[in-house]
Structures are given as structure tokens and as C-alpha cells.
């Protein structure tokens, strides 16, 4: 309830309780002016206040009653029971309305016309009136008479002999609600102590429960069961005492915005929603500063000046919407402004200037990725430094504060429309939902907030785990998930390998990794206890907790573990140059996992992991020579093995590392000297390869690395591979295909394949260029396009092409990593005929064939 309204109700309740009494007394002693004044002032105050807070029905009744009382005070109306009846009726009506307001914060439906008419009758038509007063003059006259009346010394009302009546009791009971203290202040220390004590009680309860469970028949069973229930309720109740509405952290914000708008000459409305959303006081304290900071940013840099807003055709008053809501054990707070938004290009430019990312890499990053730079230390896009804040100044602090309490923060913006910052924070820090896992016989708790999913890997599915150069990865759907072995990371003693292991898929910021554990037990609400100072520096832990049976277990910190294992680059020293390359982003699939290997060629060589079927180590004796070729028995078939290095001596290394490729039911092995690593990079082929089998050279981990052409090797292995058009020469009759992809790598991969299949291929690096070609008059029989591209994406391109007469009916194929049904639907809606997963070459070639065939039939 609004504070103002609450105060009004409390005050009115006190006054009205007295009013009945006063009126009754007045009836008995009609000449007691002090009583009359007291009654008049009470009604007058109610009328004044309710008009102010917009209770119009109440105001109407009070106003009519006030006029009558004023007439009595002036001697125009005699104080009689008749007139007091009507005043009392008005008082009853006021009380009834107030009671309703207290419950619903709204006036009840209804009409007081009859009552008001009855009261007004006394003003003009009453035979008791000493002088007729025009009815319409009364409202004007009333306020004028207020001032002198207040100067009249009045005896305190309680000096009158009280005449208790049932009416008063009933009346006060009806309206007293808010005036009673229903809350009291308790020190936080006391609450913390309660929390600790309840925690101990819960432990004792657990031990008792276990003891009782060991006895066959126990007379303790029933009381213990009851104790159990009561303890649980108590724990919940104590936890609740620590909860506070988030509005408590917002109280200073309206004033802040008022002052900011005043200082800057802007007009800003602050709309607050969900102030009643409750969260733990510890969390509340932790978010107070970040919230204030972000709000400042929104007001200072988000909302434009009045003049600018007018030019932009927006309302002159900007709005900042602060909202909070519960969402599955978390509180989500949005700070949304309808201001200018953030120019992503400006951020991109700044990120390059600051050396956070290389220029070429920056161009390749998606807007969402670029916006994350705002949360980097020392990043500010504020064109001028104002005395309030620069957007971005301290945003790194905001992020680290939020992340410190296990929350996340993300920013989205639409240029010209506004910016929204979303904070997601846990409800409480004292109790978290945690997944209990076992590794090497020890139990650990993993906070649920970071857990995305659980994957159980039975022994027979071990092959889903790839081991490369000591690093292990799990193929999980389309994702290659780096694995972190908890036992190894924590250097736990090795026991017997379990029959199956589980992978807890964790999300930390943008990085996702799998934590390999032996067992997954269950989810529990655990009380987080801080660890002592001797182990505080260990980033692997977020704290510890005591389980039901009194054991202490460590709570793992997913972020710390990721950093320790090197899954995220947060702890890396010089990270600026490689940041863009190492950042993972599943939503945009901007990076590519690349397998690095050494084939004794001087430089390292690389192949996209998505093209790799398996990694094998094959004993030299298993490599058979036949017909000048090397073959190996592989899963029941004989597959050819070719050296990545033409000078490769097959038997020189035993066992021989072999990379297995599969394509179109053909499988081959590529013999290499050593597998080096798997890295996530944004693969950009910098120059063409200067010898066969090499697609080009890319800079990976700061080193020039040759990216091999798996197709070339497949052709070497299978002479008949694409035999029909070995050189890919397209004649004049060849169907013309436009291939659009902002990845040079994919262009390099797909274009030769399409040419080999007999198509005349034109490549284009972005949607804009593709549209320009069509507009210029280039004609194509089919268009293949990536979806995720800078500037003009695949969806837009499809719509644009459909709008062009020359391409309105040309088959369009989307090639993308986005495979959700939703994206598929969106793609088809945009005008694509087919929606294919990248790298499914079979599907690509057959689909092209089909579409072109049906097209020629139709034509």
C-alpha cells in the first residue's frame, strides 16, 4: 500500500474513533463550541486529504458534512439531533468507505447523492437556518472560515467526560487496522543468530531422525516426526524473516532520477513495478549499488535531451522502467529506458581502439558479443564525460558485483528505441539449491544456478568423449563441450573407474563446459557457510555446507572451476589479443572448434573438428600396404589412410595418430605425427593455400596454421571421388549458384565442392553484396545462404531476394547452424525453400539437385 494512503488511513482511523464520541457529546451539549470545532476539523482534514489522494467519493461526503458543520459553527444552523443524525450518517458513510479503501485501496462503487442532498438541505432549505446561504457559495465560504477557527483555543477532546458507546467501539474496530503496529524492528544480528540456531536444530533433528530409523519400533517415532515438521517450518519462517521487498533498495531512486533530470534538463519518468518482490537482505544489499549505478547510466546516457526526443518524434518525457519479478528461484530485475539506445558500431570501434579485440575479429563478432564489451573494465562509450557518469564506466564493477552473488547481467539495445539491462540474481545467498555429486568417494555440491543439464555416459558410450592432447571433449548434439574432470582438477586420489560417469553441463557467462563426476546424487537446499581464511583463496569453492547427517561438504564454484581448468579466459594474463577468438558463443556459433595437428610440415595444420569423425591411434602393424596404398581395418571395413605429409613414413610412428573423416559413406584416415590441441577460434582464412590439400592459412593462437582441405584428401583416397568433374570446370550450361556466407572458411569449403559437382559458383561475403549483385542484373539459378551474417542476415536476404523479380522464384536454401524449429519456421517464412544444417554435404548436394530439377520441370 502506498505510504501516503497508509498514513491517511491511520490518521483517519484515530480521528474517526473520536468523532463518534464527540458528536454524541455535542448532541448532549449543543453549545459546546470546542466540540463542534473538533468535529469540524476532523471532517475538514479528511476532506482535504482525500481530495489530495484522489478519493472523490469520500471527498464529496466529507465536503457536504463539512459545510453543514460550518453552518452550525457560524450559527446559521442550529445544533439539533436531526441535523446531527445526518452528520452521523455521513460519518458512518465515511467509515464504510475508508474500511473498503483499507482492504482494496479503492473506493467502493456507490452513490451518496441521497445523503449529500439531505445534508445540503440544511444549508438552504432548513427552517433552522438563521440566514439563507446560497448553496453554491458554501464551498467557497468554508475554507475562508477555517483560519480563524484554528485560532480559537480548544480544550483537548479527551478532557471531556467520555461517554462510551457501542458505536465507538464498533467503529474503531472497523477502521483501526492500520493504526495497530503489526511489524517491529529486529536487529539483523539476532536474525543471523536465529538462522544459525535453526540450522543447528535442523542438524539435531536429522540425527534424531536417523537414530529413530534404526530402531524397529520406537516410541520416539511420532514426536520426532512432529519435530521434523516443526523444524522445517521454523527454518522456512526464519528464512522468510530475512526477506525484504526489493522496493527497499529502490526508495532513493525516484529522488535520484528527479535530481538527475533536474540537473540535465531532461524529463524522465521512473516507473517501478514489482517493488514487493522479496529477496534476501544480503542479496538486496549486494544489488543496491549496481542498481543505482545502472539507473544513473540510463538517466544520464540512455534518455536523450528533450529537444533530441522531439526531433526523434518521441514524447518529450523519457521513461525508465524498473521492474522486478520472481522467476524460478531467482529474481529478475530489468532496467529499461526508452532512450537513444547504444550504437553497436561505436562500441565495436571503441573495443578495437581499446585493444580489446582485433579490428578484423571485431567485424566478425555479433552485436550481442560486441555489447558485452561494455562490461569490460575501463570501457566507456560516453562521448563526453559528464559529472554524472559515463555509460560503461563502472559497468565492469556492476558485472563483477552481480556475478559475485551468483547472478548474471546482460544488456540489449535497439538504436533509437532504448536499452535494457537485465539482472538475474538468486533469491537468497544463505540457502541455495545445489546438486550433490560424487567424485573419488567425496561429495560436493554444485549450485544449481550454473547447471544447464546432466548427461550420463555409460561405459559403452565412452566414444562420445574425445581426448585430444590431454584435453577431453564431449560431443553433445551439435556442441563440442570441453570436459573438466573434477577428480583430476581437485587432485583427488584415483579409485576404481566407475561403470558410468556423469557430466554436469555448466554455464559460466558465455562459456559452457562439462564437469565430469562419478555420481550424481540429488538436489538439496543447502545452507551456505563461508570457508575459513586459510582456504578462502581457493577459487574452486563457493563455500561449504553441512549435510543432513552432519558432514561438511564443499560447494563448488562453477566459475572458479572453469577458470582453473582454463575453460574461460577470465584468469588469462594477456587476453586482449585472443579474446575474440577464445570467447565461446553458442547462440551465434561464431567460433569454430579446430583440431590442431602436427604432420612434420613445419607449421601446425588444422581441420575443423566438425569434419572429424574420430581420432584413432593405430598400431603400425595394422597399417597394411596394398596396391601402393595404405589401408587399415576400421570397424569392419578397409579404409584408406593417407599421410597429411606426402613424405610420411607410415610405420615411423607406432602407434600412428590418425584423424578419421567420413563423407558420403566413405571413410578415410589421415595419418599425422601428433595431435596437438583443440582450440575454439573464429576461423578466418587469411590467404589461399599454395599447394594442394591446403585450403589456406589461418592465424590460430597467434601462429600461421594451414587449414587442410579434407575433400582433396578424400579425392586422393578415392580416385573416383567427383571423378566426373575433377577440376570443377563449369561450362556455360552449368547452373549458376550464388553462395553467400560471411565465413571465408565455409566459402572455401563449399565453393570447391559445388564447383566439383558441376555448378558455376559465385561467392559473396555478405547479404548486402548478394542483393547488390542481383540488383545489378546478375542472374542465378539457385541461392545458398548462411543465416547469421553481419548487417544483412539470411532472413533479410531471403526477403529481399523474394522482392526482386529476377530472384522471386529462384530456389533459396538456408545453410545454418541454427536448427531450432522456430528458426526453421522463421527461415521458411522469410522465403527459403529449404533449411539445411551446415556441413551436411550430402543433403546440400541432393537438395540442390532436387530443387534445380523441379525448377526446370516447372519452367
Amino acid at each position: 500500500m502506498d505510504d501516503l494512503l497508509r498514513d491517511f488511513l491511520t490518521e483517519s482511523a484515530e480521528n474517526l474513533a473520536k468523532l463518534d464520541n464527540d458528536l454524541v457529546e455535542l448532541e448532549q451539549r449543543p453549545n459546546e463550541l470546542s466540540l463542534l470545532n473538533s468535529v469540524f476539523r476532523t471532517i475538514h482534514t479528511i476532506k482535504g486529504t482525500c481530495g489530495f489522494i484522489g478519493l472523490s467519493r469520500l471527498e464529496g461526503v466529507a465536503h457536504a458534512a463539512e459545510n453543514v458543520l460550518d453552518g452550525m459553527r457560524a450559527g446559521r444552523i442550529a445544533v439539533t439531533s436531526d441535523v446531527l443524525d445526518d452528520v452521523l450518517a455521513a460519518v458512518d458513510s465515511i467509515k464504510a468507505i475508508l474500511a473498503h479503501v483499507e482492504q482494496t485501496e479503492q473506493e467502493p462503487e456507490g452513490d451518496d447523492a441521497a445523503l449529500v442532498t439531505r445534508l445540503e438541505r440544511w444549508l438552504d432549505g432548513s427552517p433552522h437556518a438563521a440566514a439563507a446561504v446560497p448553496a453554491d457559495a458554501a464551498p467557497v465560504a468554508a475554507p475562508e472560515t477555517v483560519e480563524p477557527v484554528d485560532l480559537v483555543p480548544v480544550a483537548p477532546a479527551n478532557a471531556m467526560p467520555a461517554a462510551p458507546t457501542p458505536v465507538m467501539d464498533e467503529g474503531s474496530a472497523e477502521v483501526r487496522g492500520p493504526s495497530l503496529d503489526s511489524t517491529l524492528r529486529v536487529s539483523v544480528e539476532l536474525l543471523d543468530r536465529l538462522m544459525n540456531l535453526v540450522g543447528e536444530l535442523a542438524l539435531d533433528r536429522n540425527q534424531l531422525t536417523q537414530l529413530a530409523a534404526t530402531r524397529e519400533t520406537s516410541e520416539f517415532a511420532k514426536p520426532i516426526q512432529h519435530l521434523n515438521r516443526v523444524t522445517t517450518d521454523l527454518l522456512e519462517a526464519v528464512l522468510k524473516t530475512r526477506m525484504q521487498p526489493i522496493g527497499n533498495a529502490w526508495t532513493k531512486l525516484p529522488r535520484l532520477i528527479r535530481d538527475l533530470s533536474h540537473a540535465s534538463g531532461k524529463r524522465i519518468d521512473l516507473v517501478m513495478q514489482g517493488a514487493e518482490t522479496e529477496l534476501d537482505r544480503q542479496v538486496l544489499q549486494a544489488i543496491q549499488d549496481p542498481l543505482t549505478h545502472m539507473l544513473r547510466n540510463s538517466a544520464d546516457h540512455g534518455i536523450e535531451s528533450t529537444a533530441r526526443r522531439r526531433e526523434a518524434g518521441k514524447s518529450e518525457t523519457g521513461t525508465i522502467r524498473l521492474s522486478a519479478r520472481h522467476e524460478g528461484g531467482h529474481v529478475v530485475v530489468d532496467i529499461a529506458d526508452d532512450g537513444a539506445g547504444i550504437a553497436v558500431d561505436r562500441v565495436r570501434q571503441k573495443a578495437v581502439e581499446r585493444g580489446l579485440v582485433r579490428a578484423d575479429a571485431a567485424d566478425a563478432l555479433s552485436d550481442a558479443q560486441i555489447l558485452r564489451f561494455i562490461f569490460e573494465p575501463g570501457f566507456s562509450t560516453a562521448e563526453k564525460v559528464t559529472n554524472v557518469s559515463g555509460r560503461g564506466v563502472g559497468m565492469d564493477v556492476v558485472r563483477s558485483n552481480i556475478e559475485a552473488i551468483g547472478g548474471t547481467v546482460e544488456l540489449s539495445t535497439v538504436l533509437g528505441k532504448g536499452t535494457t539491462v537485465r539482472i538475474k540474481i538468486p533469491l537468497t545467498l544463505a540457502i541455495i539449491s545445489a546438486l550433490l555429486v560424487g567424485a573419488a568417494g567425496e561429495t560436493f555440491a554444485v549450485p544449481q544456478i550454473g547447471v544447464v543439464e546432466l548427461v550420463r555416459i555409460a561405459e559403452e558410450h565412452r566414444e562420445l568423449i574425445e581426448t585430444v592432447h590431454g584435453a577431453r571433449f564431449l560431443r553433445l548434439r551439435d556442441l563440442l563441450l570441453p570436459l573438466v574432470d573434477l577428480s583430476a582438477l581437485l587432485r583427488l586420489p584415483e579409485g576404481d573407474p566407475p561403470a558410468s560417469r556423469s557430466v554436469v553441463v555448466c554455464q559460466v557467462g558465455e562459456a559452457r563446459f562439462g564437469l565430469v563426476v562419478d555420481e550424481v546424487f540429488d538436489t538439496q537446499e543447502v545452507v551456505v557457510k563461508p570457508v575459513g581464511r586459510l582456504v578462502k583463496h581457493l577459487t574452486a569453492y563457493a563455500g561449504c555446507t553441512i549435510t543432513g547427517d552432519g558432514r561438511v561438504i564443499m560447494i563448488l564454484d562453477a566459475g572458479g572451476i572453469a577458470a582453473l581448468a582454463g575453460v574461460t579466459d577470465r584468469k588469462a594474463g594477456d587476453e586482449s589479443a585472443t579474446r575474440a577468438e577464445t570467447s565461446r558463443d553458442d547462440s551465434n556459433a561464431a567460433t569454430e572448434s579446430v583440431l590442431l595437428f602436427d604432420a612434420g610440415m613445419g607449421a601446425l595444420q588444422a581441420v575443423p573438428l566438425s569434419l572429424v569423425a574420430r581420432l584413432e591411434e593405430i598400431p603400425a602393424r595394422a597399417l597394411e600396404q596394398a596396391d601402393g596404398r595404405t589401408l587399415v581395418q576400421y570397424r569392419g571395413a578397409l579404409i584408406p589412410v593417407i599421410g597429411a605429409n606426402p613424405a610420411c613414413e607410415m610405420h615411423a610412428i607406432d602407434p600412428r595418430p590418425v584423424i578419421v573423416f567420413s563423407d558420403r559413406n566413405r571413410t578415410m584416415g589421415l595419418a599425422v605425427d601428433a595431435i596437438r590441441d583443440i582450440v575454439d577460434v573464429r576461423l578466418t582464412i587469411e590467404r589461399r593455400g599454395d599447394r594442394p590439400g591446403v585450403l589456406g592459412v589461418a592465424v590460430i593462437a597467434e601462429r600461421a596454421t594451414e587449414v587442410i582441405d579434407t575433400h582433396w584428401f578424400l579425392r586422393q583416397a578415392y580416385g573416383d571421388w567427383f571423378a566426373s568433374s575433377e577440376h570443377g570446370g563449369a561450362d556455360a550450361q552449368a547452373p549458376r549458384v550464388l553462395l553467400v556466407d560471411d565465413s571465408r572458411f565455409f566459402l572455401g569449403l563449399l565453393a570447391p565442392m559445388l564447383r566439383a559437382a558441376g555448378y558455376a559458383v559465385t561467392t559473396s561475403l555478405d547479404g548486402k553484396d548478394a542483393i547488390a549483385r542481383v540488383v545489378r542484373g546478375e542472374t542465378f539459378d539457385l541461392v545458398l545462404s548462411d543465416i547469421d551474417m553481419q548487417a544483412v542476415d539470411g532472413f533479410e536476404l531471403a526477403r529481399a531476394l523474394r522482392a526482386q523479380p529476377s530472384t522471386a522464384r529462384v530456389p533459396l536454401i538456408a545453410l545454418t547452424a541454427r536448427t531450432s524449429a522456430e528458426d526453421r519456421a522463421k527461415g521458411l517464412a522469410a522465403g527459403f525453400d529449404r533449411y539445411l544444417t551446415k556441413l551436411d554435404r550430402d543433403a546440400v548436394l541432393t537438395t540442390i539437385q532436387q530443387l534445380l530439377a523441379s525448377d526446370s520441370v516447372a519452367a
Partner: protein
Amino acid sequence: MHAPVARLDAAPAATEFVTFRLADQWLGIPVLLVQEVLSSQRLAKVPVAPEAVAGFLNLRGQIVTALDLRVTLELPPRSSDASQMNVVVQHDGELFAFIVDDVGDVVTVAPTDVEPPPTTLDARWRSVAQGIIRRDAGLLVVVRVGALLAVDQPGPG
């Protein structure tokens, strides 16, 4: 809950010492620093913690960091079946349990009987020793709790 604990770490004015044994050596801590003595407790291991940290123990709902003083004082590890005791001390508002081989009597010593540690004492021991007390039963080394807690803290990990 606990009696006020005087900070005697720096001032050797205490006259009562809780004595405990590590291998053949008896050591003492001012009695006012000791909160309680516990028999062997179940410890929760804290992987990758400094070596001296033997684990955490649950003392009525409070987390106590247990330190094996044999590790701290570079003594050979005790045999697996050897008995051990926990001396729980409070230091800077935090509870620690020193794991020792045995706990002896509380001895009362006049301040003047506490002598500075001899320079011939092993460097590791000298860094924690506040003084020594000559007794009929042998030397009693008075140790500084703060120094015992100065465990090497390697970088995050």
C-alpha cells in the same frame, strides 16, 4: 556463547598453558586462547587446500578449519592408527582445530619462567615459538597461534 577471549598472542603474561604433544615434543598454548579440546573428529577433506589444512569439521553447526600441526611443523606424518586430538582455538574471530598427537595437563607457569627460544632451535620451530619453559619432564615450547596459522597460501588453485 563463548567466554571472552583475551588476546595474549603478543603478550606472554599468561600463566596457564594447555599442553599438547607432537611426536616427542610438548608444546603449550595460553589456556585463554583455547576454546575446547575434542577427540578425533570426522573431517571433510578440502581438496587443493594448503597441505597443512587437514579439512573442515562441524562443531555444532560451525565450520572449523582443522590444521595438522605435524605438517605445519614439518614433522613426519603419524601412523594411520595413531590417536589424535583436536585443540580448538579461536583466532581473529575464526575457529581452528589443531590436530595434535595428545593433549596433556594445563600447567601454570610464572611469566618469568618463560625464556626466549634458543637460537639453536630449528628455523621452522623458531618462527612459531614464543618462548620455552624448562620442566622436569622436558622442555615445553610455547607457540604463537597466529604463527601456526601462517600457512603457505599458494596462488589460486
